[in-house]
């Protein structure tokens, strides 16, 4: 008699077999057989307007005076962390634009549940996202170099490797990448990227789509200069939905290909402007899909940021600013600056919380432009009264003894 468990095991074996076959077939297609659809590499971008030139419409940006030196795109290396709904589309756009190198990070596999988003296809289900993405992207544009890493960046060993690749994964091995793009879907991974980039002084852009799929944002982070991800509680685009009508029962996250595509588009647009030097690079750009509202702002680094490398980078930035010869200001940029000190005390309505808890838990709300708010507030450290409860008592026991004691319980 076969039990359910045995059958489950058999199904898993067969699934793995299938994935291996798919991978083998993909490799064979790469090796030959399918060469009709694969163009050879192009050494130099041409502006010639012919049907066979994949770069003609991009090089036209020069003739139209939008971009001064489009070919420069081939000298840049960009790391994309998170190759999901936003990251995969971001990588595709950069690939089609002819970026020099892409370094992709993701620990996840393609699933059929991802098919409401763009880029991945049902036959790729079961493959790692980075592997599947590299395969598709390489066939779209063989001029781009790819480097992929299939792991979770927030664990100790992987994080060390991640930092190493950010600081050495440039187009010329050994140089840092030019830009890191955060396309992850969780706070932990964003904080890990933030920690790494603050330590390395690496410029990066953060992107995000809300769990209810109707708002998103992009943000440029220049360590020491603009607010880092830890400088303030997470910023969110107010969706103007009554919290009481928002049903969360039984689901963790919703997603739409539209919102994700829009955010990826906004992100890559900002990347191109930043790398190729045209237009105005946004510091923070929000997207409220319910009202079609795009709030923008700029936010300075917080001198009291919890991240000590952020504070170190701020000192460094101040030193450099002081050393720099004063330049004539050509155009005064009028942007709302968000200051953290001396803020009014905003009280947020959170259900299931008592009055006292609310009082103790809410902190100053940064002064933000219309349409942008914080996910939550944190009370001022000095004013915080230690909640009821005592701190751990000091003992003579060593860590090993404590571990053994816990194990015996």
């Amino acid at each position, binding site marked *: 008699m076969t039990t359910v468990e045995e059958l489950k095991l058999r199904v898993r074996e067969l699934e793995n077999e299938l994935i291996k076959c798919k991978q083998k077939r993909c490799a064979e297609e790469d090796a030959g057989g399918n060469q009709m659809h694969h163009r050879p590499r192009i050494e130099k971008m041409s502006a010639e307007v012919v049907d066979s030139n994949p770069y003609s419409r991009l090089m036209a940006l020069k003739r139209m005076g939008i971009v001064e030196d489009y070919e420069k795109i081939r000298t840049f290396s960009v790391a994309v962390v998170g190759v999901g709904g936003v990251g995969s589309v971001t990588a595709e756009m950069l690939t089609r634009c002819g970026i020099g190198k892409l370094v992709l990070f993701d620990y996840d596999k393609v699933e059929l549940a991802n098919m409401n988003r763009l880029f991945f296809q049902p036959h790729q289900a079961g493959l790692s996202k980075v592997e599947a993405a590299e395969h598709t992207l390489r066939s779209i544009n063989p001029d781009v170099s790819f480097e992929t890493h299939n792991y979770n960046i*927030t*664990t100790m060993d992987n994080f060390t490797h991640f930092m190493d690749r950010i600081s050495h994964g440039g187009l010329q091995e050994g140089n840092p990448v030019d830009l890191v793009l955060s396309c992850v879907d969780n706070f932990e991974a964003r*904080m890990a990227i933030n920690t790494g980039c603050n330590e390395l002084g690496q410029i990066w852009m953060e992107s995000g789509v809300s769990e209810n799929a109707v708002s998103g944002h992009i943000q440029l982070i220049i360590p020491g200069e603009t607010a880092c991800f830890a400088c303030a509680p997470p910023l969110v685009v107010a969706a103007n939905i009554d919290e009481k009508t928002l049903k969360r029962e039984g689901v963790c996250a919703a997603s739409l290909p539209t919102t994700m595509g829009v955010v990826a588009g906004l992100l890559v647009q900002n990347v191109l402007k930043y790398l190729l030097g045209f237009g105005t690079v946004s510091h923070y750009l929000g997207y409220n899909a319910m009202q079609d509202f795009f709030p923008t702002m700029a936010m300075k680094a917080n001198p009291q940021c919890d991240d000590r490398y952020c504070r170190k980078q701020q000192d460094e930035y101040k030193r450099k600013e002081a050393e720099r010869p004063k330049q004539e200001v050509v155009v005064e940029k009028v942007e709302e600056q968000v200051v953290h000190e001396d803020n009014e005390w905003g009280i947020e309505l959170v259900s299931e919380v008592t009055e006292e808890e609310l009082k103790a838990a809410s902190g100053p709300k940064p002064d933000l432009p219309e349409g942008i708010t914080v996910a939550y507030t944190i009370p001022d450290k000095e004013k915080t009264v*230690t*909640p009821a409860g005592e701190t751990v008592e000091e003992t003579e026991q060593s860590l090993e003894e*404590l571990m053994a004691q*816990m194990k015996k*319980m």
Partner: protein
Amino acid sequence: MADEVTRKAVSEIPLLKTNSGPRDKELWVQRLREEYLALIKYVENNKTADNDWFRLESNKEGTRWFGKCWYIHDLLKYEFDIEFDIPVTYPATAPEVAIPELDGKTAKMYRGGKICLTDHFKPLWARNVPKFGLAHLMALGLGPWLAVEIPDLIAKGLIQHKEQQNNS
């Protein structure tokens, strides 16, 4: 935040003092000692209150944790393996607790069986950095999750009591 019982249990967990993560060398050992002290106290409290419901242990670096949790429903004990990694940004970000065997059985889970915590957990954790530790994560994160999800999964027939399952 939570019900009276949880509230009381949390208030009796000792708070931690050392703001240190796994990338710090000596300070992390100090933080780990505090983590163990708080966890031991919490398990002792649970035993006294006749509500013993989990065990945890870690690798020697304290970066990877694993153990068991159990939930009593209709006088039957349902036991699950739990595991999580300490993120490099700990304690600024809480670890993501996973119950791999329940992966795919409930929508309140992320890939890999990571439990999906309520909207209240993250702000609560952020406001209590670095005072909250793994014991608080158990009490405010995993505990309430089990209390909501397990009875629901049993009612839907998605999990069976292990002895009953073996008999059938």
